[in-house]
């Protein structure tokens, strides 16, 4: 191994221009690849408070067709209860507002601080792992009594009270008096299900709210219950409800609810269609292939000219008992080390850029939206096994595409030709 690394180093040093172009090319292509990958993955990978992304399923949206009107919309309380309450095989479920609402904190409009709020029920805190900084989270009593207990994020608490230790403090939000029961760590807008600055209690029995609040039902299936089992139940409930509604020929149209996180984040969530993740995956795969194929072709010709210098070496190795297959695997291994060297730099660079300037990563996938002023990506969100695995897989694929043709060609040289070519 050590011999191999020294040899690679000396080989690269003997052709400095090609060596640099190879390394920089690898670094750059892995940088681009990772940037696109991160923009995509940030939608799926679990990070707090959406640490359960892999397991949670969501009941959301409905479409209703009546003789004289039809509507498709966010879930109302009525539909949430009809279709998702007490499904079999669900360990916990929570209701939460699907979107945040803008608002302001402070008693007079001019000095008020803008803050987005989201209504959530008490179960919400069990499905999403917010980090508590001070106080506690509101409980079932508080949600049911429609109390004024709220939870704030750390930075909003600092803005309002000058401290994150704000439990017990009072303030005015949208001209209503509120009591802070707890403070949680700030939530990245990239966690789009959880993001908010003020969390207000959501009362399942609030009739006023039920008219103008679009919610979703987050559900944690029991270990061993698949999403299909839940879908079957929900579809059954749609059918039952439609039978009941039959006389006035009003019908709910089922669109494959509940959805998993991949569907949720696929940009194909509409209330009147079933989200299509296959199309999204195809596009994604195609992007990745192009992102790797184009640099691979260039790296391939670099490697080819590096190997041409080593024809004599391969000839002599063959004379001493090296098989063709061994030459191919040796070249692939050597090149993998070079690819990894360049690739790891590219990966680190991409993560650094993502942390320092997230817009670049996010805009690559069109997530960028001027609504939120502060997108923040932490290295922690990106450094998970799935991402690292995909990055190394990309290096491996880049290596195989770029090195297999040159390696095969190197293995085809006959030993006498190689040796005599070096004599001349």
């Amino acid at each position: 191994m050590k011999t191999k690394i020294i040899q690679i180093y000396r080989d690269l040093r003997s052709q400095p221009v090609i060596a640099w172009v190879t390394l920089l090319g690898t670094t750059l292509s892995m940088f681009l690849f990772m940037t696109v990958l991160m923009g995509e993955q940030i939608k799926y990978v679990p990070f707090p408070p959406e640490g359960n992304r892999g397991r949670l399923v969501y009941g959301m949206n409905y479409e209703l067709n009546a003789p004289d009107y039809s509507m498709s919309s966010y879930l109302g309380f009525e539909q949430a209860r009809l279709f998702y309450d007490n499904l079999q095989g669900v360990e916990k479920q929570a209701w939460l507002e699907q979107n945040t609402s803008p608002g302001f904190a402070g008693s007079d409009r001019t000095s008020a601080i803008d803050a987005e709020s989201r209504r959530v029920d008490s179960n919400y805190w069990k499905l999403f792992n917010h980090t508590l900084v001070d106080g506690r989270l509101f409980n079932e009593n508080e949600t049911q009594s429609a109390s004024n207990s709220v939870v704030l994020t750390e930075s909003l608490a600092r803005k309002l009270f000058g401290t994150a230790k704000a439990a017990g403090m009072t303030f005015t939000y949208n001209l209503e008096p509120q009591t802070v029961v707890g403070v949680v760590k700030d939530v990245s807008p990239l966690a789009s299900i959880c993001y908010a600055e003020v969390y207000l209690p959501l009362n399942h029995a609030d009739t006023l709210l039920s008219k103008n609040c679009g919610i979703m039902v987050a559900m944690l299936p029991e270990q061993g219950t698949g999403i299909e089992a839940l879908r079957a139940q929900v579809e059954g409930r749609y059918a039952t409800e439609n039978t009941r509604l039959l006389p006035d020929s009003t019908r709910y149209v089922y669109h494959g609810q509940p959805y998993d996180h991949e569907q949720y984040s696929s940009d194909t969530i509409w209330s009147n269609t079933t989200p299509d993740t296959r199309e999204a995956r195809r596009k994604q795969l195609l992007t990745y292939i192009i992102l790797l194929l184009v640099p691979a072709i260039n790296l391939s010709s670099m490697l080819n000219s590096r190997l041409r210098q080593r024809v004599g070496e391969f000839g002599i190795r063959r004379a001493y008992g090296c098989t063709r297959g061994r030459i191919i695997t040796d070249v692939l291994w050597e090149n993998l080390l070079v690819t990894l060297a360049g690739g790891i730099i590219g990966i680190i660079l991409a993560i650094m850029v993502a942390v320092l300037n997230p817009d670049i990563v996010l805009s690559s996938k069109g997530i960028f939206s001027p609504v939120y002023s502060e997108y923040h990506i932490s290295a922690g969100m990106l450094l998970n096994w799935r991402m690292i695995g995909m990055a190394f897989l990309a290096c491996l694929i880049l290596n195989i595409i770029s090195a297999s043709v040159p390696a095969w060609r190197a293995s085809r040289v006959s030993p006498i030709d190689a040796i005599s070519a070096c004599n001349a």
Partner: protein
Amino acid sequence: MPIIKISSVGKVYRTKEIETTALENVNLTVEQGEFVSIMGPSGCGKSTLLNIIGLLDKPTSGKVELMDTDCSSLGDTAIAAFRNANLGFVFQSFHLIPTLNVYANVEMPLTYRSMGHSERSRRVHETLEHLGMSHRIRHYPTQLSGGQCQRVAIARAIVGRPSIILADEPTGNLDSTMGEEVMNLLHKLNKEDGHTIVMVTHNEAQARKTDRIIRFFDGRIIS
């Protein structure tokens, strides 16, 4: 019992325009432990013959038997293994791998065997010691004189303890003193270690010191 047996071997090189007959009906046997030299004018087919004996090239016709094995019928992988176990090569221009140091160059043939690291290391050190090159073990080929390069190349040829050493003009690129040294080394390997050696040379004096001279002309053995 001959260790090398070449029977009616012919070799024709065909390109689009011309056909070159490099060897024509060559018969040759070499006994175990013999030191044979091949002489003849340039272009008469000496290297071609050596390549065929070394299984680096296939004859157009005829049969090659080495150590009682009919090598004409072996497949690629079997030939590679056979070369690794039984043949050592020494070339006019050394053909050391420039990006490897002396140690790694000599170790190379052993890396194609299933042999542990410590055993390989022991063999390489022992061989370099034997050839008086231990003090240059971390040097790279460009840091060595021609004679030293050829010693390293010989070390590489014998490290796997092959029965047969094939040397194609091993002193061709060396001055007379260095050439002398290399020749003494080959004789020592032949006498003391029992390697069978087939050597191509243009040097009449060198050839005369070997057990037998085979004279070649125009693809044929003339004596």
